[in-house]
């Protein structure tokens, strides 16, 4: 939502700090950041995080991850709803609604949510993505009750505070967010252009989380009430409390603040796999840019799929580090690109691997595209070498340790594991899963991803340059 750490259209890669919403905005070089993983396990210490779980009578799932030396606690609420659940004509509503949830509830006046948390030394935000919407506060440990009061008040007492004025105000804010973060950013419309080619009409991932102006304009108070009643009940939410707290005290506090919120019946989400493909092909769009950039997006294993980690390792081999295949070939040897990136999006219904190549000025998109596909073809043909695979595992393990050092990110990773995979223990198992990715696994996933139908491509070219 807010403009604190990250704009609201985004989400996290597996709880990491990667930004899956728009690889373009991660800049040049490697777009993968903070992804999870494991290296060879011989003698390496593997962190283990204690996870305690309970379900309240009203259906709210509560996970407690105690530990950490810092006197901090993170409260992270994840609702199992995202832009993929939006009805026709309301693209962007899940995210607009997320903004509304910061505008106060029956006992919390407008503006107080942010003010109170920041005045307590805390930090907070909310983000919306295709599959989920999350809200979190990281505060000094003595302020856990503050965070739980705020989160429970908006889960249980939101509607009395909802007004047309707040909806109109946040609609304007979100439209400005779309302008600032997408329309007025170089290459900012590439991802939504690719999504429309990757998926057929009616597919839940066909439109971007930020939505479109005409649908934002159409949103009503009735939509907001229906959305809240449908998706924001305790049985559709998971609360993670991580940090310097004792599990019993954390569960008791969660029960105290959330226990009185009535259940609203079983959630109605259709969470089935959705692997239908769109027309693909190559789209060229003009932009006010000095150099062309090529996006290749491939259908890939979903986050809960056993092959997801192999797809993630594949993206690492392609574009993470200066020795990665694309960087070496396009930036160092051919000298046609300024930077490369790749990432595997941890989506629930079907996955995507993105490859992004920014050209040096004057290099045509077609040349970037052709050279990129040559590198991909070679990887499919030859498979990865053990040496480069070892490096990918080592990088993944290090990034996971870096990420999980932070209580905010541990809570985030745990919530993603619980909601998108239905498996909180993934937080600990992820090390071994990356460790186990073999050359055969990567060869297989490369073949499946790159051979079948080929990627959907978006060429962003300098305006007037061959539209």
């Amino acid at each position: 939502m807010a403009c604190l750490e990250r704009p609201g259209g985004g989400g996290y890669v597996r709880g990491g700090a990667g930004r899956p919403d728009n690889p373009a905005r991660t800049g040049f070089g490697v777009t993968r950041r903070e992804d999870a993983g494991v290296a060879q396990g011989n003698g390496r210490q593997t962190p283990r995080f204690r996870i305690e779980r309970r379900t309240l009578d009203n259906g709210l799932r509560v996970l407690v991850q105690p530990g950490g030396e810092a006197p901090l606690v993170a409260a992270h609420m994840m609702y199992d709803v995202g832009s993929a659940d939006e009805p026709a004509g309301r693209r962007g509503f899940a995210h607009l609604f997320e903004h509304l949830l910061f505008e106060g509830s029956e006992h919390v006046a407008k503006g107080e949510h942010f003010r109170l948390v920041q005045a307590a030394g805390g930090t907070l935000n909310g983000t919306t993505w295709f599959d989920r919407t999350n809200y979190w506060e990281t505060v000094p440990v003595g302020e856990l009750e503050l965070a739980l009061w705020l989160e429970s008040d908006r889960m249980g007492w939101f509607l009395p505070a909802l007004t047309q004025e707040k909806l109109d105000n946040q609609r304007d804010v979100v439209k400005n967010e779309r302008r600032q973060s997408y329309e007025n950013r170089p290459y900012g419309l590439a991802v939504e252009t690719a999504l429309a080619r990757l998926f057929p009409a009616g597919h839940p991932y066909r439109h971007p989380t930020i939505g479109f102006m005409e649908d934002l304009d159409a949103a009503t108070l009735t939509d907001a009430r229906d959305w809240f009643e449908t998706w924001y009940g305790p049985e559709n939410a998971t609360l993670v409390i991580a940090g310097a707290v004792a599990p019993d005290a954390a569960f008791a506090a969660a029960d105290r603040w959330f226990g009185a919120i009535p259940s609203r019946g079983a959630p109605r989400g259709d969470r089935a796999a959705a692997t239908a493909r769109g027309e693909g092909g190559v789209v060229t769009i003009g932009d006010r840019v000095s150099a062309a950039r090529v996006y290749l997006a491939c259908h890939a294993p979903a986050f809960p799929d056993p092959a997801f980690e192999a797809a993630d390792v594949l993206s690492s081999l392609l574009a993470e580090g200066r020795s990665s295949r694309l960087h070496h070939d396009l930036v160092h040897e051919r000298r046609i690109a300024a930077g490369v990136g790749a990432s595997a999006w941890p989506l629930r219904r079907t996955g995507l691997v993105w490859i992004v190549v920014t050209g040096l000025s004057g290099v045509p998109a077609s040349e970037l595209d052709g050279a990129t596909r040559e590198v991909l073809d070679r990887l499919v043909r030859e498979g990865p070498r053990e040496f480069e695979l070892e490096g990918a595992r080592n990088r993944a393990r290090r990034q996971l340790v870096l990420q999980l050092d932070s209580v905010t990110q541990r809570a985030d990773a745990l919530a993603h594991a619980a909601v998108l995979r239905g498996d909180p223990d993934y937080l600990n198992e992820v090390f071994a899963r990356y460790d186990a990715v073999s050359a055969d696994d990567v060869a297989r996933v490369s073949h499946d991803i790159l051979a079948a139908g080929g990627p959907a491509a978006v060429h962003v070219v300098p305006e007037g340059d061959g539209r």
Partner: protein
Amino acid sequence: MSGPDRTRRPPSRPTPAPILPEFREFRSDGGLRVRAARVARLPEVAVRLVAGAGAASEPAALTGATSLAVRCLPEGAAGRSARDMAAWLDHVGAGFGAGAGHDHVELHLHALAPTAGEALSFLEAVVLQPAFDPDEVARVRREAVDGLGRRRDDPAAVADDALAAAVFGDHPYGRYPGGTAATLATLDADALRETWERTLRDGPAVLIAAGDLEPEAFAADVARRFGPLRSAVEAPPVESASRPPSSALRLLHHAGSRQAEIRVGTVGLARGAPDEIAALVMNAALGGLFGSRLNRNLREDKGWTYGVRSGFARRRAAGPFEIRTAVDTPVAGRAIEEIRRELQGMRDRPPDGEELDAARRSLTLSLPRRFETTSRLVAAETERVAYGLPEDWWHRFPEIVAAVGRDDVAAVAQRFLDPAGLVTVIVADAEEARPGLAALGVVDEPETP
């Protein structure tokens, strides 16, 4: 069902103070300061190496030399080619980054503890024996020039650079540390090697590390490796700029812009300036927090923007005070009027009571987050050392903030927020923006390249 009292904020419970690990200091024979602390929560080591001369110490004709030299460091070193260096680092799996800001050169490293020695060997190679191979330099230079071109594609970056130039003029802080296409074109391998000698090899440097390590043994290892660094020389001083002469308002045309990027700023203050902390408190209330006056007005009341922030960039010399936002283009003029109204309001009605308390608490109570992770701890310690702050700085910080009163905040508001002393830059589609700016008076529209 009876539950807790929802009608008011739950009372705060005591939060223990963060326990800061002790950094122990060692010195290499050559003079490199090494500070190391043991934090063994997770099997990781974080390292930062800071050298005390950044882009602000460059002659204007060589702007960008430090940045380009630092970019070239890993592109071949210690007898290994650029390709071999890349393969080495990527196989170890360590995170490595290097950059030059206005004040410093900074290199950082993050590694799993079992690979920390290997990662340090990589750092040692790039710091002590960079090759500056002419062919690699030519490639990296081309990439850097291209990066400048892409920077001009981005209205937000254009606005940042334009404000710096308008506020600081010919002062080094008016220049982008990455240089210009013209200055980069003159930089060959020899020039970059000289820059490296001046800044990294012979400049004052400190290496800060924390993680799963034994400080003494670690420091001895670092001192042995980095012995050749001659770190005794003081960094050249940077003089503070004088305030810009007028409240200029500049409109830069960016064809087809979908928003107006707005920057309002002036010369702020330096690290360690007497009123530095009062300025931080004042800024928290003005535009440093989500619930600050500017954001409440422009976003939460008007809906004109996704967000507006203000801040003091405190550097070795006085850095900029700056307000940044992007608004719907037709309301750009009204947004600037509101910003000016809030600036004047902060002078007329400085924060007091709960508003002042909240600003102070946001600074002190957030300290535990600054030291939470190994990487952040190293970053905080690096910041302290790089700017010569006292050893007990973070311990004293809460008291210093608590001592800032209404009068102190009022004084900094008077000093920095006079709307007549602030420069305004707008980057927008000029056709669309012009009508809304009419009420603001004279608008300067310089030619845009």
